[in-house]
């Protein structure tokens, strides 16, 4: 159901929506590079440090409104996505590059959409210049002036939060031209990168406590808004579905490999933790001009941002990567797994004695009483 409030844009917003002045196609005189985007948790091939100069990097985002399944019970959800994934794809460029995005809203969709890039400057992040109705496309170019990981999301007036929590968000990573560095200026490189996009979902329930399904995304709006306003999600998922990054889809690595985990939450605070590991170097706020923090146990990704963590695996086995509000991790779905191969290091950890009966006898350190005068 579209209300007049939604169908007719507010005056303030309308004032910002101007046709972009027609510019010569290549006023920048820079080389162009088209990049084929890849579905999360993977990322398109890219250089970390680059010797090349600034370019115009071309990306295409096609908006898909579609019904998806969000948990093992088969709960259906009317999602709105960039390129058919929750979250949308990770885009990687370098400082000084220009990002040229073609945003396509196919005729088959019901909703108007746009895009706000947190890395961009002006026009509500591009939101004011990218309104597309079904059957339209728009091309926006913005300069990547700051390094870091930045969220992008859809933000159409009258229904901004709903589009975001329905799956329309992703991340752009702007790397320094000479790659990542630690506080002392030493180069930091990753062997693999995983992008974990966290999504809070607010699925309405009927009187019997069962999740409701809707024929169209528009029909879900009113009920969903009611649940959203209570600020308690029914699901908190990584990559669009409970268990999406577990089992056969667990993330993988080898002992000795350095993995970069980019974690975004476009709406709500989260606190990632790698169970069994650490964050060797963490840009908690996600901005590479700030030296990374070291040796973190858990880091905080504020809602509306993306952060990045580097870790070199030191032990083989199964790790869980969770939002460390454990209720959200275990009960609501905010858990992923890493499967890591390699050799076990007994120096780092060893089971000295397996579980067995409690032994009587000699006082242990715990039993020794120290008198303090």
């Amino acid at each position, binding site marked *: 159901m579209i209300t007049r409030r939604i169908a007719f844009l507010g005056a303030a917003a309308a004032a910002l929506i101007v046709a972009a002045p027609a510019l010569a196609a290549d006023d920048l005189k820079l080389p162009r590079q088209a990049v084929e985007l890849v579905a999360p948790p993977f990322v398109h091939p890219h250089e970390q440090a680059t010797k090349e100069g600034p370019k115009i990097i071309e990306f295409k985002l096609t908006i898909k409104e579609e019904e998806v399944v969000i948990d093992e019970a*088969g709960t259906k959800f009317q999602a709105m996505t960039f390129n058919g994934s929750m979250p949308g794809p990770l885009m990687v460029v370098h400082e000084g590059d220009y990002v040229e995005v073609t945003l396509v809203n196919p005729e088959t969709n019901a909703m108007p959409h746009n895009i706000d890039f947190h890395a961009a400057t002006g026009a509500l992040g591009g939101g004011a210049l990218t309104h597309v109705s079904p059957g339209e496309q728009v091309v926006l170019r913005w300069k990547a002036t700051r390094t870091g990981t930045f969220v992008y999301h859809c933000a159409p007036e009258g229904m901004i939060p709903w589009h975001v929590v329905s799956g329309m968000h992703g991340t752009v990573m702007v790397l320094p031209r000479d790659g990542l560095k630690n506080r002392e200026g030493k180069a930091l490189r990753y062997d693999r990168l995983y992008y974990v996009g966290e999504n809070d979902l607010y699925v309405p329930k009927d009187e019997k406590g069962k999740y409701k399904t809707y024929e169209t995304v528009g029909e879900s709006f009113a009920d969903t808004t009611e649940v959203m306003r209570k600020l308690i999600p029914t699901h908190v998922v990584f990559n669009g579905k409970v268990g999406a990054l*577990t089992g056969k889809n667990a993330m993988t690595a080898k002992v000795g490999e350095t993995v970069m985990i980019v974690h975004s939450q476009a709406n709500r605070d989260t606190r990632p933790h790698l169970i069994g590991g650490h964050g060797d170097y963490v840009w908690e706020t996600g901005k590479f001009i700030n030296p990374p923090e070291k040796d973190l146990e858990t880091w905080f990704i504020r809602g509306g941002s993306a952060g990045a963590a580097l870790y070199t695996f030191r*032990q083989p086995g199964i790790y869980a990567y969770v939002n460390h509000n454990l209720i959200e991790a275990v009960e609501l779905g905010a858990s992923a797994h890493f499967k890591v191969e390699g050799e076990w290091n007994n120096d780092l950890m060893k089971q000295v004695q397996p579980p067995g009966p409690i032994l009587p006898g000699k006082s242990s350190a715990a039993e020794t009483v120290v008198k303090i005068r």
Partner: protein
Amino acid sequence: MLLAMKIKAAITAAALASPIALTIAPVAHPVDSAITEIAAKPFQYRLAGDFSREGKPAEAPLRNVSLPAGIKIMNRQVTAGEYARCADDGGCPKIPHASEMVDRPMVGVSWRDATAYAEWLTNKTGVLHRLPTDEEWVFAAGEKVRDEALPLVDPIDPAQAWIARYEAEANRARPGAFDPQPVGSFGRNENGLQDFGGNVWEWTNTCFLRITLEPTGTARVTNTNCGVRVVQGAHRTYMTDFIRDPRTGGCAAGVPPANLGFRLVVDDEKLSAAYRIVERGFAKLAVGL
């Protein structure tokens, strides 16, 4: 409850000891589900629990065992309608948001809920009903049993087994449907019993045991934890007795059971008498593997 535990202990002992032949006259039974009686015969059983030998993890022994007097077991899992009758009668806890599909298996029940149902049914019918032991379940399930001797955790390099188990769990075929299906959807086994190994995992009475295998060959139970019970289905697992939702309470990494439900065995008087005889010798029999 205590009686049920004694029976369980007796049956465990009996299963581990040499078979005792008894003739039992069949009893007509006033429950909804048909009961099938299966005569005793030897079968392969992989013992449940955590085993070690000389301080190192050991594979659970696979034994030829035989139930002393066969088994009388429900043809199908207890249904939502049957459980509701118990709940309405005040005999069982009401399960919030239980399915209204009364003819489908009852799911979302803990071991405690299932035990309450068994006690209520026992009082109603005057005949002892209880959860099966793990041995009884394996015997009844027959060809539907999946014996998974998962790789042992090597204390020198525990990760190898963790990864192998994780991959084995990830590769297990998942049931097609998650919701409880009409009775019989998962077929019958060679004993004519329905829905073993479908999308409902069944509680047993068997407790979690830690057992040391001595060099002499005897098995010594070093810890018994009856707060954790064996759950059987498409695979065997262990679950804390108050868990109703296996998604978050089950297999830590890997794939948990889709649903928790149960079926019961009938333990009529003559069988009970036999078990009481066996029970007296339990202490000696427990180590006589």
